[in-house]
């Protein structure tokens, strides 16, 4: 039985969704507005759809992790986001968690690769 592309897509979305929040929080240690934030993330190799990014930023703001402010730049009003104090603390916790998962996953992958090679 072949796995449907929909199942793969759903797993990919689940895997990415948490990472995107962490990436956005980390990038917003420096103030950005939506457009430049997306570009900065894309330049670093993490593409995120605009229609996903903005609702994510609003959710993080409503959770108190981000602060936002409408300001004029180049004669146009833009909404600038930056990490709040709570956001900084939560980001540190999430990065610790990320580090732990990353190391564990690394060990799991290395061990399973060795076992496959021994067969």
């Amino acid at each position, binding site marked *: 039985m072949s796995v449907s592309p929909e199942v793969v897509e759903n797993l990919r979305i689940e895997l990415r969704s948490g990472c995107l929040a962490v990436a956005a929080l980390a990038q917003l240690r420096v103030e950005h*507005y*939506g*457009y430049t934030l997306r570009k900065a993330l894309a330049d670093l190799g993490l593409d995120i*759809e*605009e*229609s*996903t990014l*903005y*609702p994510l930023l*609003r*959710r993080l703001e409503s959770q108190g992790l981000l602060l936002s402010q*409408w300001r004029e730049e180049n004669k*146009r*009003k*833009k*909404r600038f986001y930056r990490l709040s104090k709570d956001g900084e603390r939560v980001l540190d916790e999430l990065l610790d968690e990320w580090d732990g998962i990353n190391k564990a996953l690394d060990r799991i992958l290395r061990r399973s690769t060795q076992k496959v090679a021994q067969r």
Partner: protein
Amino acid sequence: MTLSEHYLDAVRGFLPRGVPREDILAEISEHLQSTIEEREARLGRRLTEREQEEVLNDYGSPMIVAGRYGSGDRRLAFGGALIGPEIFPLYVRVLILNWCIGVAIHAVLAFALERPAGLWPFLSTIGCQFVGLTVVFSIIDRLQRRSKQKWYFPPAYLQPIPRWQSASGLLVCTAMLAWWIMVGFARPPLRDAAEMPLEFAPGWYALYWSVILFLAAGIVQRAVNLARPDWNWLHYGVRLATNALALVALYFVQSQYPFIVLTDSATASDHTLQSVAGLNDLIWWALVGIAPFYFLTNAAINAWFSAQHICYAMRQRGARVSA
């Protein structure tokens, strides 16, 4: 209205309740503007409306974009997801509206028939609406996810007329024209039954050439759009003209009462004469009560699209002049 404004309007229509709409739209608008400006700077010229449409398509379908501002993970699932979180808020709104209409109709019927409506018809209506709308929305959800055309609400002036639409319209209009020409030449009876033989009243033949003109205009428009689907302005222009003229023609048509007559009324019974009078009354009410509403709605819709075409043409002309 610019293309971006059309898009933002479409998003606004799907935004869930309780979200700061203007704030969200301002942010999306700013993003679209930044993207367009960046592309223009790269190309060294202004983007055409087609290129602007690409930017909007990349941003996503208004329904999906708006749905992402909804309350997180609300969705309908029986094992697999039937209706995703993006269109779930719209699904709930439409379902509630349908239920309200259903309840109102039941209440009116119960009042009019002077008998209390039972619980079963009420519950079966609610159940049928739930099943029907769930099926429709799950199909929309699937199509949305699989479709490459993410933004399916572009303004009419950027959409070619589908060839199947022109071809089917051409067939129907040609068949109607052939029938009408045959009616004019042969003047056949409408109904050949011995108990009630019917034919068109002579008044119809006063409108003979007008009807031919209407149908011919429809045939020409469809034939041209079949060959040139991108001449979409022709579709809306001709529809506007024919529907507006049909409204005028309707005034003359309704004055031609009776519309159908017995082929031989001398030998007809009272019952037959009454039946024919009833049929004529029915036609008159349809002409006065339904047809004007139909033609007026169609004329208004096509006037709206034609106005958009004119604005688009003026913008294009302005862009050419400034270039």
